[in-house]
């Protein structure tokens, strides 16, 4: 049975990085307007809606706020990767006839409300928390333990991790909206203070305000819309944790979600022209590249050196400057899909990857070394 093709027809990143004068709902609504206007649509055309990063039934409050009465709802909560997963969910819902036009939104004022996104405590009271929270895990710490083990197991160095931060900053210099745009060096990263060893301040993503929105519909319907559609080729979602207490911490969800994504999209690694990899921390990128199969386990350190992941390299990634330099309001998955869409539409000016036909997005959500999600999405130029 042939599957109906689904397209991204609206992709809007809110330009703000600091919005003490706005609410998170307002940022989401402004982004929704931007994404719908690209396609020549209005709120009245939306019959499917998804969001994440709001309260337990915040998806209903968002519907209330936007006065939506959709036929399909999704409030996936798997951390920062949620929006990547929601693109897959939306595509499935449209294919199955549950709805025709899905709006996905995100808005956050993490920076202006001074959330300690990566270095706060916090415990939801779920069963594992009693065995974790008492020991003071931070988000950074959870990722740092993966980095420490990776260094021990494979000889990966802080210099190699720093190369990722340096490359993202170079890309941010090409993005007028990026939060930090001045070039940095490997030495700058190593000289920045240690937040949670072996990760330095500049190994960590920024904290910003921001938001974005996506609109999806069938490729058939997309033909009648104003924007250039980008095709959803396939994807996969996975969860990793310590299970009953036994695991290799360097084996992450991307191994499972990535394999499924490549299979479903029918593309190979060589077909991928650019990647949008969730860069909460430098180690996140290195681990993801290995687990997606762009290199072998343990080879990530060498892989990210020598310009391969920069604009003009063999596998350019995070052309917007990533979470490490452009924006990170807490859940970056949304921006992975937006930038990939814009790259495939060739709208990215000085940071445009030439002749980009296939883009891979991978979101990581939660605490990489403790429990986390992975969501992989492959998009293609129409």
């Amino acid at each position, binding site marked *: 049975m042939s599957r109906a093709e689904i397209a991204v027809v609206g992709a809007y990143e809110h330009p703000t990085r600091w919005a003490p004068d706005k609410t998170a709902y307002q940022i989401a609504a402004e982004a929704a307007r931007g994404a719908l206007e690209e396609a020549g649509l209005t709120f009245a055309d939306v019959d499917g809606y998804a969001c994440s990063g709001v309260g337990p039934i915040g998806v209903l409050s968002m519907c209330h706020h936007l006065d939506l009465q959709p036929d399909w709802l999704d409030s996936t909560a798997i951390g920062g990767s949620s929006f990547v997963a929601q693109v897959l969910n939306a595509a499935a819902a449209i294919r199955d006839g549950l709805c025709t036009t899905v709006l996905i939104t995100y808005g956050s004022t993490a920076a202006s409300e001074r959330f300690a996104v990566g270095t706060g405590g916090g415990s939801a009271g779920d069963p594992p928390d009693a065995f974790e929270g008492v020991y003071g895990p931070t988000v950074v*710490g959870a990722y740092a333990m993966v980095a420490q083990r990776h260094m021990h197991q494979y000889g990966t160095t802080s210099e190699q991790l720093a190369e990722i931060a340096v490359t993202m900053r170079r890309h941010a210099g090409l993005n007028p909206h990026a939060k930090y745009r001045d070039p940095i060096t490997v030495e700058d990263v190593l000289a920045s203070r240690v937040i949670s060893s072996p990760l330095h301040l500049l190994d960590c993503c920024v904290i910003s305000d921001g938001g974005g929105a996506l609109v999806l519909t069938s490729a058939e319907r997309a033909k009648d819309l104003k924007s250039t559609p980008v095709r959803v080729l396939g994807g996969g979602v996975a969860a990793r944790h*310590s299970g009953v207490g036994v695991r290799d911490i360097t084996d992450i969800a991307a191994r499972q979600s990535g394999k499924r994504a490549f299979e479903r999209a029918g593309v190979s690694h060589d077909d991928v022209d650019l990647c949008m990899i969730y860069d909460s921390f430098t180690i996140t990128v290195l681990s993801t590249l290995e687990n997606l199969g762009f290199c072998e386990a343990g080879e990530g350190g060498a892989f990210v050196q020598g310009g391969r992941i920069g604009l003009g390299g063999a596998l350019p990634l995070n052309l917007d400057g990533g979470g490490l330099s452009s924006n990170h309001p807490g859940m970056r998955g949304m921006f992975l899909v937006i930038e990939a869409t814009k790259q495939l539409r060739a709208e990215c000016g000085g940071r445009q990857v030439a002749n980009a036909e296939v883009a891979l997005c991978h979101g990581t959500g939660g605490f990489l070394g403790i429990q986390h999600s992975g969501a992989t999405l492959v998009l293609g130029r129409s």
Partner: protein
Amino acid sequence: MADRRPGKPVPRVDEESKGFWEACRRHELRIQRCRSCSQLRFYPRAICPQCMSSDVEWVLCSGRGEVYTFTATHQNHSPGFRESLPYVLAYVELEEGVQMLTNIVDCPADDVKIGMPVEVTFEDIGDDIAIPRFRPRAS
């Protein structure tokens, strides 16, 4: 009575975990073993994820293990932790083969290494809770 250290979370003891915490109070480290399929499991839970049996026993651990991975935490704004920076968060692999998230104590953060032999030590928090942490031991 030991200080409850306001702000630092105290583990919530529930029906699934109380066997673990009751053992800790006696300064014993016990983990679950499924009586049906013999699978060891940590953290404790009522049903074996491998065979779905509810029949479980609490195995006394040696308390010895090795550091599997760790991080020296230099920034945490949460009350109870910000006062104890830097502290070491770690996974310890017990001799029995399961990994536990914990802290490495009685050791300067800079001296902690992966593979380092460690042993359990309990911190009494009030009369009813003791928290297992790990400290270096002679190999």
